[in-house]
């Protein structure tokens, strides 16, 4: 291992409208080291990753390759310095074989004009696969491979393009223990070959097992760079999580919760969770936390009836529910989905049209649609939620993220919903609008509704919820009462130990 890092970033800053993603971050990677990058969701890890591979340009800062200052303007530069990122969405063609995928766009020509030399492609591919210890026939079609194996093909693809720095984003997220072992063995080989690896992970066991160095990001800043021997998992969690309390939202006193509104027992579904049980009472905000991929959205969808459950029961006010979204809406259940543009709004339609959609049956029992009544109902929601739009006729695509989210929530006020499921309600919304959304949710429970809230921002859960369930790998890892509800506890329960 040389003393000069292969790649070094100094003072990198990157801003997006309304949000400072990275603030004077410095980072270095040596040849043959595994450098762990940890931090909560939104800490800046993926932004840093995108800057490393040239997908984003830094606003400020400098880059050094083997000690020399260089320019990093785009993906071509990143490739020049041997940086390759293994993303979560693979760029593999399902019905081509491994070798063809590795050499896509760089096929070897055969002696005959226009034809490619298949045997050479296969032989070269075998060489690359062997070099990472992946023993498989390169003629295997990619669609037959499991996720772990596809990931290895991606890695082989990167190496065949002479990558000297690999950036891996949660590579073990979809892997079994056995596959993880294989991945680690491969990483050892890469280290020996002098390849530097930047490894993003939420799994503390991996961080300590594999990492040569650990860098903690928080709110776009580099908080610390440590050796594994200098710290413990608990200290690491504290570094990741500790921050000033956000004073713009104060939790009001809430009346004691009423009777049980939602009861879920031993619910399982093939979409990705099993044996989930939880309850929500009227007037309560219950949080559902856990890492991305732990099954929270899937549970919410099953409760709402958007996906089929394979086992267990769901009861609303004692009666079974969850057969279809239509039924749930009739029973006064609301879902504010994860992705408001893709799942919550009809972007081409007006604000008013979107607001009345869920409540059409309630507003117009005769099934005759009267525009005047619809506009009135829409205006009343617009005023109540203070949605910033000059008219209900405006296409909803013209609104800001925060206002769009208010429209999604407002949709349910007309449907007289009594139970709300929120999935990441403040994602992509700036600080000012966030507080407003919280107040809105407060109002809902104040009027007797029950709320189940999914959020990846632990601080939100701690502030707004009365209690919370934490999910991990498709199961409930634990329940936290009001007193136990702290960010550290959530993070600890949610991560693999």
């Amino acid at each position, binding site marked *: 291992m040389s003393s000069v890092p292969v790649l070094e970033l100094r003072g990198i800053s990157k801003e997006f409208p309304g949000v400072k993603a990275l603030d004077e971050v410095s980072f270095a990677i040596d040849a043959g080291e595994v450098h762990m990058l940890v931090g909560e969701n939104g800490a800046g890890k993926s932004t840093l990753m995108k800057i490393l591979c040239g997908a984003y340009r830094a606003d400020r800062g400098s880059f050094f390759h083997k000690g020399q200052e260089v320019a990093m303007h785009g993906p071509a530069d990143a490739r020049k310095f041997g940086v390759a990122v293994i993303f979560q969405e693979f760029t593999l063609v399902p019905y081509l074989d491994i070798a063809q995928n590795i050499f896509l766009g760089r096929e070897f020509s055969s002696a005959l004009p226009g034809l490619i030399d298949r045997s050479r492609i296969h032989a070269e591919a075998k060489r690359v696969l062997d070099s990472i210890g992946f023993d498989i026939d390169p003629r295997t079609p990619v669609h037959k491979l499991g996720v772990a194996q596809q990931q290895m093909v991606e890695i082989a693809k990167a190496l065949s393009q002479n990558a000297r720095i690999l950036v891996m984003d949660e590579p073990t997220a979809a892997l079994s223990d056995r596959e993880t072992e294989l991945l680690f063995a491969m990483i050892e080989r890469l280290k020996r070959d002098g390849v530097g690896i930047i490894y993003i992970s939420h799994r503390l066991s991996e961080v300590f097992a594999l990492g040569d160095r650990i860098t903690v990001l928080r709110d776009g800043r580099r908080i610390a760079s440590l050796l594994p021997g200098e710290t413990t998992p608990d200290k690491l969690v504290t570094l990741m999580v500790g921050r000033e309390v956000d004073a713009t939202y104060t939790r009001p006193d809430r009346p004691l919760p009423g009777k049980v509104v939602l009861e879920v027992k031993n619910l399982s579904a093939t979409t990705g969770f099993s044996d989930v049980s939880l309850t929500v009472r009227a007037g309560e905000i219950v949080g559902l936390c856990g890492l991305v991929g732990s099954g929270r959205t899937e549970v919410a969808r099953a409760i709402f009836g958007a996906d089929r459950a394979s086992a267990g029961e769901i009861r609303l006010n004692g009666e079974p529910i969850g057969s279809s979204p*239509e039924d749930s809406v009739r029973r006064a259940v609301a879902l504010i989905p994860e992705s408001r543009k893709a*799942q919550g709004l009809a972007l081409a339609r007006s604000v008013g049209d979107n607001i*009345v959609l869920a409540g059409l049956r309630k507003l117009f029992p005769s099934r005759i649609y009267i525009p005047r009544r619809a506009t009135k109902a829409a205006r009343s929601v617009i005023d109540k939620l203070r949605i910033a739009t000059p008219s209900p006729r405006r296409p909803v695509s013209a609104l800001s993220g925060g206002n769009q989210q208010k429209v999604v929530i407002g949709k349910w006020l007309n*449907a007289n919903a009594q139970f709300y499921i929120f999935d990441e309600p403040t994602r992509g919304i700036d600080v000012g609008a966030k507080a407003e959304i919280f107040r809105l949710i407060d109002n809902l429970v104040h009027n007797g509704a029950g709320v189940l809230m999914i959020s990846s921002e632990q601080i939100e859960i701690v502030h707004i919820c009365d209690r919370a369930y934490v999910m991990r790998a498709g199961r409930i890892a634990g329940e936290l009462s009001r007193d136990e509800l702290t960010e550290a506890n959530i993070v600890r329960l949610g991560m693999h130990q």
Partner: protein
Amino acid sequence: MSTTAIPRSARNRFAMSGDVMQMLYRVLALLLLGAVLTALSDVFFTTGNILNVLRQAALLFLMASGLTLVILTAGLDLSIGANVALSGCFAASVIKLTGSPWLGAGVGIGCGAAIGMANGVLVTALRIPSFVATYGMMWILTGVTYYYMGGETIHGFPPGFRQLGSGHLFGIPVPVYVMFVFLAIGVFFAQRTIWGQQIYAIGANPVAARLSGVPVERRLILVYVVSGAMAGLASLIVLARINSAQGDIGEELTLPAIAAVLVGGTSLFGGSGTVGGTLIGALLLTLVLNGMNLLQINSSWQPLATGIIILLAVWIDTRTRRIGE
């Protein structure tokens, strides 16, 4: 931005939506085309020709009105022409057999609706893309029709029935009255019922519609049934007009019907468009075809012209989408 700062009069100005402007442009185009044709041909602006145009446009509109609902959901129904053939032939047989035009009409519309139901099931339950399902259905229907008719023709319907296609009321062809009736029904359904609102929502974003409690599958089947039933209705008018039925009637109506809907402003990608627009589209298209006839252009050019019009309309649609995004 707060809502209270903007005065009421300004709000009304915002309320003059893009839809109305689009309609205005199309009516202008219609008038322009009419003017051009009047200049190019002496025969155009005569009573006989205008009535003919209206009659043709009415038939086209009836075909296209149901199709509009299908396209609003981002689907397509390529089987309507073949639907006219089969429903028309069945209706014709029943009229000849029982002597009752009413029974025949019932069978015709019922058959059309049943075909629509089959399309709907293919699209929702079997999840076959609508253009593939209705394309296959088109061929199946053609085959069944030819088999049923065996190459023969049925002619001679009761004079009362024939009034539907070739009769006049106060000098205006009967089909035009039928057109107005269904224009009213269509506009009412699309703009003044919650089902219409749900259909627009499905076209704009079927996932969001479903998660808002809209019974998406049921509504999709509904639009295909309506499209089929309207084809059945159109077949009656064709029968009444030509006073006969054979295996290939209605064949030439599919492309123009699609063109009428697209030219009328309904987007192929779903979620926007109106039945009223389709009426204007039907008139525009009929004028173009009529104009070609009057100018003695070989009728074989007509499918070609229709094809080009469709491509143009889709291209404009794609561009507008791009700008709007």
